[in-house]
């Protein structure tokens, strides 16, 4: 599965993420790639909206990991992990964060700056690549399901 969308505003990026999030099932991992300001946090914000996250989704850069309580399509409680590896230097540090909890659990995990996962990158994952477009608010979002 490969989807590529061009968006022209934050609202459109959020809408693409909301549509995508309906595909997500328990245990899914979404790896996000893209430069500073390319829309990764906005994408997670949109996806979490579709997953009925109660709390507002803000950048986890400071604390590395945010956890939200959402609901799945059946209305059952669903844990959402929002990880931001911007400050991480080596994959070893991810062990310290308790990665077993968010990789291989019953929740859904979003990882910003997923290129820092190294060997911890799960074999089955959705990859979301955010990039700038021509104009200031233009973005392209490529979503791909990888099963290695």
């Amino acid at each position, binding site marked *: 599965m490969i989807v590529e969308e061009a968006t022209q505003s934050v609202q459109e990026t959020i809408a693409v993420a909301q549509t995508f999030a309906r595909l997500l099932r328990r245990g899914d991992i979404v790896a996000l790639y893209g*430069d500073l300001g390319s829309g990764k946090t906005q994408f997670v914000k949109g996806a979490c909206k579709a997953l009925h996250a109660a709390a507002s989704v803000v950048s986890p850069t400071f604390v590395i990991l945010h956890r939200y309580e959402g609901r799945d399509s059946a209305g059952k409680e669903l844990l959402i992990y929002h990880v931001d590896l911007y*400050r991480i*230097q080596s994959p070893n540090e991810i062990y310290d964060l308790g990665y077993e909890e968010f990789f291989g659990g019953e929740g859904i995990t979003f990882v910003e700056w997923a290129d820092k996962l190294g060997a911890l990158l799960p074999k089955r994952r959705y990859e979301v690549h955010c990039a700038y477009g021509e104009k*200031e608010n233009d973005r392209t979002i490529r979503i791909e399901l990888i099963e290695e």
Partner: protein
Amino acid sequence: MIILGIETSCDETSAAVLQDGRLLSNITVVQYVHTKYGGVVPELASRAHQKLIVPIVQEALTKAHIERNEIDAVAAVHGPGLAGALLVGLSFGKALAMALNVPFIGVNHMEAHILSNFIGDRKPKFPYVNLTVSGGHTQLVLVKDFFSFQLLGETVDDAAGEAFDKVAKMLGIGYPGGPLIGKHASGGNPHAVEFPRPYLEKGSMNFSFSGLKTSVLYYLRKSGFDKAKADGKWIADVCASFQAAVVDVLAEKLISAAKTCGVGDIAVVGGVSANAALRRRLESEAQRYRLNLFLPEFEFCTDNGAMVAMAGYEKMKQGIRSSLELTAEPNLQLAS
């Protein structure tokens, strides 16, 4: 009553001794190990705290001329912050309280920042509006009493200090971004580039700095910015213009919140409250609107043990104690 306060939530290791509300010592070490990485590195932060915690607590006691057995209570931050970093100060604080057989008090980092304006003689009067601005937080709070808060608004994406750090990284001027942008900005023209002022919808007390960060990025791309060849005056202009946009939004939202809440006192705390342009702007706004402005001394803007000891002292007076089973909570919210 003698309180030992411990703070290890991010990259400062700090301990302070407070006697009956009067500060006797405050020792803070900032982990410059992060400088070359352009940000706080969690594992390095945690390891540095482990190395520093014992000597820093000892130094705080020595400087205060207080013996360990004179301590009446130990206060330590248990969140929000980096999990590994929080654990060091929290575990040390609990262990020390247990060994000395004195009460242990867990302190919320956000409460402690607000109380940094109570260190010293000039203190705000309740109720007042407080703005907390740091690398991890941007919050407007109505402070009704020492531990009674009403959250008025907060960032919907990036914290103000985070925007400073990320813009500094884009410009390649280093870390920590706040002080470095402030330094470059002092020689620049704040009107050189018109960056957007993100106010959100009319009357909103929330903040958004993600779009401003992106505008800076686009400006750099459009200008063909190259870290290696950039001219100092040009960087100074970008820094000053970016800083002016942040200061405008922070100052206007704080003043408008004070008007909405009908209070006479306003306060700003957190690392960004050390920013000279923000302080100058707030001083003139406060004068214009006849508000009493409270800003912590520079030493107490960034993370420090003194504010934790102050929160511990007020909690002790109210009979609040914590269990030794208290755990670190990286996403701890400000209680209402």
